[in-house]
């Protein structure tokens, strides 16, 4: 299948999650909504159901969710609730609400209060002390609760083998996405910023085995192409979500390609595989324990600014000239991390800009000016 056809298929999926949901339901499948971050989607898959990521919306307006949310909650969380309230996602059979950030924690209770008459709301608390035995045990306990709730919805128990199989499917998918990110940089003339985003975003709305098959086909086609001689500039993107096509089109207008990303919805979500382990639940716990360089997670070496240096190195190693940070308003963890990140970038001589964004932005005039000017700065530094 041609690259163009495959890219269009990913774009169609990325732009129409509601249709995906309707199609899954029409096929008789049960579908579970999965909120950010690090929910063990593998358990949903292992239960024979479809996990669908919920990362807000670029087209909806917050209205009904205002009844439940403080105004400073990020629009990702508010729009997720909005879509669960306004009927957009009424066909879901359940929703998993992780609580790893200060907004998602209270929001998990808002979801429960607002939605429990509609669908099961599955609470998930990850531990910050995730490395030691007691941390792994806590993660396994929590995942065990999620497993039981999912089994109730599925109407059947999942076996250790079911979960091990799901882990294999997901590890393969993560590997394919990591490979795609590299190929997208090598072929950024073909995989523009909007197309790259659509390919990665589609992963949240498809069954992973089907998604991976399609992505591996795309990767194979890309590998046949010569590495492009890119005359423009390259950046690394960072933030929670960078999936607004209108915003990403500004990159294309200014010949700015994305070399790699440090985005929660993108690479941060598939950086770490689950190890092979006889106990599949332990595999998932070990995978969460291995998450690193993450804004939201405890780092016992945080005084060394490892994450900041990791991101600065990512820019250098990916061949990018700078970093564009999409600062989700008003995300406390990302805002509070910024001084450390800025210091690491400055120390490493990596140019960057910080753009305040939220999912209700409809006018990108200021972002257009900043991105264009940043492109000029990077061009001069080349």
């Amino acid at each position, binding site marked *: 299948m041609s690259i163009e056809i495959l890219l269009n298929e990913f774009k169609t999926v990325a732009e129409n999650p509601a249709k995906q949901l309707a199609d899954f339901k029409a096929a008789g499948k049960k579908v579970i909504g999965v909120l950010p971050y690090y929910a063990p989607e593998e358990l949903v898959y292992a239960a024979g159901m479809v996990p669908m990521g919920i990362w807000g919306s670029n087209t909806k307006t917050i209205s009904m969710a205002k009844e439940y949310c403080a105004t400073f909650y990020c629009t990702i969380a508010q729009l997720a609730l909005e879509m669960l309230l306004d009927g957009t996602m009424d066909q879901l059979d359940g929703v998993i609400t992780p609580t790893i950030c200060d907004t998602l924690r209270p929001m998990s209770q808002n979801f429960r209060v607002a939605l429990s008459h509609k669908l099961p709301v599955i609470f998930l608390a990850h531990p910050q002390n995730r490395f030691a035995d007691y941390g792994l045990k806590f993660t396994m306990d929590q995942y065990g609760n999620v497993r039981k709730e999912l089994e109730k919805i599925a109407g059947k128990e999942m076996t250790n083998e079911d979960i091990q199989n799901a882990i294999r499917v997901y590890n393969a998918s993560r590997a394919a996405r990591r490979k795609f990110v590299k190929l997208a940089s090598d072929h950024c003339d073909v995989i523009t910023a909007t197309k790259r985003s659509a390919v990665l975003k589609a992963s949240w709305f498809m069954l992973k085995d089907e998604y991976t098959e399609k992505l591996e086909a795309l990767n194979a086609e890309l590998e046949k192409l010569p590495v492009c001689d890119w005359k423009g500039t390259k950046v690394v993107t960072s933030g929670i979500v960078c999936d607004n096509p209108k915003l990403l089109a500004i990159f294309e207008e200014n010949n700015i390609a994305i070399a790699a990303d440090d985005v929660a919805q993108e690479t941060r979500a598939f950086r770490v595989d689950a190890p092979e382990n006889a106990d599949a639940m332990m595999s998932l716990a070990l995978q969460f324990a291995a998450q690193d360089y993450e804004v939201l997670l405890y780092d016992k070496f945080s005084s060394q600014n490892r994450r900041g240096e990791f991101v600065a190195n990512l820019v250098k190693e990916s061949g990018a000239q700078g970093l564009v940070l999409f600062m989700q308003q008003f995300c406390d963890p990302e805002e509070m991390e910024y001084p450390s990140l800025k210091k690491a970038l400055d120390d490493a001589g990596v140019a960057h800009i910080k753009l305040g964004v939220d999912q209700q932005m409809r006018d990108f005039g*200021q972002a257009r000016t*900043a991105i264009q000017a940043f492109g000029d700065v990077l061009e001069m*530094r080349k």
Partner: protein
Amino acid sequence: MKDIYTLGIDVGSTASKCVMLKNGTEIVAKSLIGVGAGTSGPQRAIDEVLAAAGKTKEEMDYILATGYGRNSLLEIADKQMSELSCHARGAYFLFPEVHTVIDIGGQDVKVLHIDQGMMTNFQMNDKCAAGTGRFLDVMARVLEVKVSDLAELGAKSTKEVGISSTCTVFAESEVISQLAMATDKCDIINGIHRSVASRVVGLARRVGVQDQVVMTGGVAQNTGIVHALEEELGHTVHTSPLTQYNGALGAALFGWEKCSREQ
């Protein structure tokens, strides 16, 4: 050798400015219309500058658009560039020793770091209107004075009045409260100037302030703001009579450089 004429058009949010350059050194004509993007302002500014120079659009060797409304001129202009790059270029032309440019426009604030004429770093305000020209428009309306009179009135202040630097809406409410308490308008205006300066300096320090500091944009005509900035920064702030035309000047200069390279 044939003379090269380039036209820079800066379509801002509140005004449209044009500068016509001859051979990248001589300002042949300039124009300013007090309405910007989405209005008749850009076309009127172009018509005016061409008429003043006795030239036609076809006689322009290069036309470069900049400013918030730059994309609306794609049919007229050969190229569009961000106003940050153009302000950097314009300021370097007017002040060859410049290292820091503070541009307060109608709806945003930019601080640029310049190294040998090249913009190497910059900061823009977030979506909040505090510290922008719009902030001053709102305050002038509440105070029932003209924006152009703010500097003169603020200079007559005898008492310090604190105005919030964080939010235009809250600051407006504070000004109304001060008026209700019969606080002298001049003192309130001086407080507003310091409020703007405080906001802008916070942004400037993120970039790093290095002499010469040059202020561009329409707000630079307000000496009250300039003096407040000097106090807050601890640096002399230079301005030019061409301050409002600085972005258009930079655009015309980039146009000339483009033509020179092609020749």
